[in-house]
């Protein structure tokens, strides 16, 4: 009976951990999305300085929470987002037309990090 109780407590802890990870990921991804949209609107207004400044904010935020995200999400998913983020700076600085598509790609990557962790039937299957 003791083993059973311990198992139930462990399972409950694991469920709580999963809920916490989902909440934390949602919070972080929403934050990343907001900052990415700030970069996007600055790029759309051809305001390079503001876009680079917004990108700095995004990168700083990324660095702060990268370790927490890495605890819950597979490293390869975060790596592809980091690569896109680092490739965005020269595109914005040179006002390259591909900057917009890279921003869209980054938004999709951010969304996918959170959405793929959601316990939906298609993700489970």
């Amino acid at each position, binding site marked *: 009976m003791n083993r*059973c109780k311990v198992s139930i407590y462990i*399972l409950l802890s*694991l469920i709580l951990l999963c809920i916490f990870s989902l909440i934390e990921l949602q919070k972080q991804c929403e934050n990343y999305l907001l900052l990415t949209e700030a970069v996007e609107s600055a790029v759309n207004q051809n305001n390079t300085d503001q876009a680079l400044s917004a990108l700095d904010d995004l990168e700083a935020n990324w660095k702060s929470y990268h370790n927490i995200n890495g*605890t819950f999400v*597979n*490293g390869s998913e975060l790596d592809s987002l980091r690569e896109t983020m680092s490739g965005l700076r020269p595109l914005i600085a040179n006002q390259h037309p591909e900057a917009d598509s890279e921003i869209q790609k980054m938004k999709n990557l951010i969304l996918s990090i959170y959405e793929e962790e959601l316990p939906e039937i298609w993700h489970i299957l």
Partner: protein
Amino acid sequence: MTIVLIRSFILYLVVMFSVRLMGKRQLGELQPAELVVTILISNIATLALEDIEIPLLHGILPILALVCYEVIASWISLKSVRFRRWISGSPKILIRDGVIDQEMMKTLRFSVDDLMAALRMGGVFFIEEVQFAIVETNGSVSVYQKSAYQPSEKQDLQAFQPSIDPPQTIIADGQLREHSLSAIGLDRQWLDTILNQEKLNIKDVFILTADKSSAYQLIPKGVSVS
């Protein structure tokens, strides 16, 4: 490299904890579900060890979850016969009164060689000696011989002897085990007398065993087979 070392230590602790939580069972005594869980645990642990891109939590979480499911399922099967049958199956009779149930052998995909090997391992070499041969839920075969072929026991010969507890290890490699001494109703005074007789200290004794009748066997340190 250091990360792998630390991760392997953490996973080692998790796997050890999981195995302890599952309880003490020999590999051959595992139910099919327990065996599958044990194999799964080792596979999951390997994945998290090999690939440091996978978060450690992705390795620990399924290991703990599987063990917890297994323990809870064991507990439910303890309470519910129907659930136990569903999880573990039920024992099946292969031989009844010396006659092999061939349909059951087909159902269990049990070959004649498997059956004969199982009988031989049970000390039986002739099928007609078998009253019952039962395939247990863990896959082992229990053999019950016909009474004519069963070995005689002391009570069959009316040779009754009082049952006595087995001897306890009192000193092992120079270390005294007080609880063993008290378990057989002896005390330190008895031990000191024995050691004085043998002119030895506790630390000089390799092994000392004794039973309730105070009969003992003492092997000093440094005595080896030449």
